[in-house]
């Protein structure tokens, strides 16, 4: 009984910290997605230089730990502060963890998402592309009518997993960046509480619970969207229809 009361008393302590995790994810996902689309198109480009550059970017950010990317970004931003950010008067923004955190996450998720989108881009049926071209569509119209709808549908399940793991990696932000005032995320809060009473099982479990709950919400929402997207596919044909599964390929 006492245990249950302790747990119930503990849960709300994470509500405000959770907002930081949610903020970091929500701020970086849309921007990262836009970059990812550009990178994926770049990697798929006919121009060798663009292709190489985009591939190299994707490889570098998928091939190194996010933890180090955070340190790297912060120290680079700091080194640039006296020469760029301060003279331009934007230091308040550029050096803010609430900015640098999403910045590093954007760079990272852009690479992971780009790889997902690139894989999906290559599955776009050639025939459908040709049909669009045969009607005299401009390259942009072809992209809008055929390429994009096909790509996003194929990529969605994998992208959902990427979103979940991006959300999980927000836990790294405050392990690497300085803390402004009393901003704390879920994991930081758990660690803080732990250092007070050494009750690892209680605090970390509740933190895990919070992550789990938010993860579930993400899956629910993205699953709904997927259902809508895939209306055009008969339900039985599971082969051509990638299943939305809680089965991430990559974390960092």
């Amino acid at each position, binding site marked *: 009984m006492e245990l249950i009361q302790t747990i119930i008393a503990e849960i709300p302590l994470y509500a405000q910290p959770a907002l930081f995790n949610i903020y970091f994810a929500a701020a970086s996902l849309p921007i990262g997605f836009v970059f990812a689309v550009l990178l994926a198109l770049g990697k798929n480009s006919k121009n060798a230089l663009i292709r190489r550059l985009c591939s190299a970017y994707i490889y*570098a950010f998928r091939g190194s730990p996010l933890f180090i990317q955070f*340190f790297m970004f912060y120290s680079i931003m*700091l080194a640039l502060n006296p020469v760029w950010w301060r003279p331009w008067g934007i230091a308040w923004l550029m050096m803010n963890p609430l900015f640098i955190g999403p910045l590093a996450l954007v760079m990272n998720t852009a690479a992971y998402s780009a790889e997902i989108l690139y894989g999906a881009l290559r599955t776009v049926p050639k025939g459908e592309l040709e049909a669009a071209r045969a009607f005299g569509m401009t390259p942009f119209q072809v992209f809008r009518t055929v390429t994009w709808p096909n790509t996003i549908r194929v990529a969605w399940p994998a992208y959902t997993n990427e979103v979940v793991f991006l959300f*999980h990696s927000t836990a790294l932000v405050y*392990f690497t960046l300085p803390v402004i005032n009393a901003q704390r995320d879920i994991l930081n809060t758990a660690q803080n509480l732990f250092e007070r*009473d*050494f*009750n690892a099982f209680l605090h*970390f479990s509740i933190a895990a619970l919070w992550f789990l709950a938010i993860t579930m919400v993400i899956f629910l929402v993205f699953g709904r969207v997927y259902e809508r997207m895939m209306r055009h596919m008969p339900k039985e044909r599971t082969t051509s229809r990638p299943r939305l599964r*809680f089965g991430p390929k990559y974390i960092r």
Partner: protein
Amino acid sequence: MDGAFWLFDLVGEDIAFWLGYLTNGKHLNWYASFRFTIMAAIFGGCLALVFGLLGAAAKGSRFAVLRAIGTIYVSMVRGVPDVLFFLFFPLAFEQGVEWVWSMQVCTPDSIAADQANWPPCREANWLLSTYEYLILACVSLGIIFGAFTANVIHGAMRAVPRGQLEAARAYGMSEFQVLTRIHIRQMWVYALPGLSNVWLLLIKATSLLSLLQIADIVWWAGQLGSPNFLPQAGLVHGDWRWAYFIALFVFYILVTLLSEKGFSRLTVWARRGMPVEG
């Protein structure tokens, strides 16, 4: 520095200075700390394979209880960040050991004498030094990535064509022979791409060692790059951390590159003779 004059003559002052700087004791410590990362990757990887095989066996087991354990284990790491597990497992393990130990050594008096919330009494305290933390880190990595491995292996076991197993059964092989001679042998081919992925993830996760109070490459990079204003502490310089972290960034990319090369070799070897698809 006196002994290094010939160096000055040979390569000029600047290069000699940098050579000297990059080989000072602090840097040597940094280079030496790569051993932690490498050990964590190798032992963590081996443990992950062991846990993965166990997990896959449990998940594919005929007994509902084992299957449930396997399934929970495999899905455990999905909903929660790996950092959280990475912090939690060593603490949980330490506290678990101390708890068991405290049953043996604690007396009511010694418990009363202890001020802290944990451990129950001083005698039950288990001191963790770098190597113990390293072991715990390896175990944590093993458990976390074992879950991924289990998933990969479970899928690969099911990817082996049924006909291959039926043929073996039809010739009178025992279930054990079918498993070892055919099933597991062919499973590797289907598992390798997934295992390669897990391995890359694990390598990247080794960057978290510093969270467990291990003076690993990341910690040393921070130390070396931090500005120094005290001549007694060595070269006085500003904030050079960006350079050190870029070096680590590149290091990990190279390791990834090498690993991928290695795995593609391994795949070619494991697939030899087997049909190529796709």
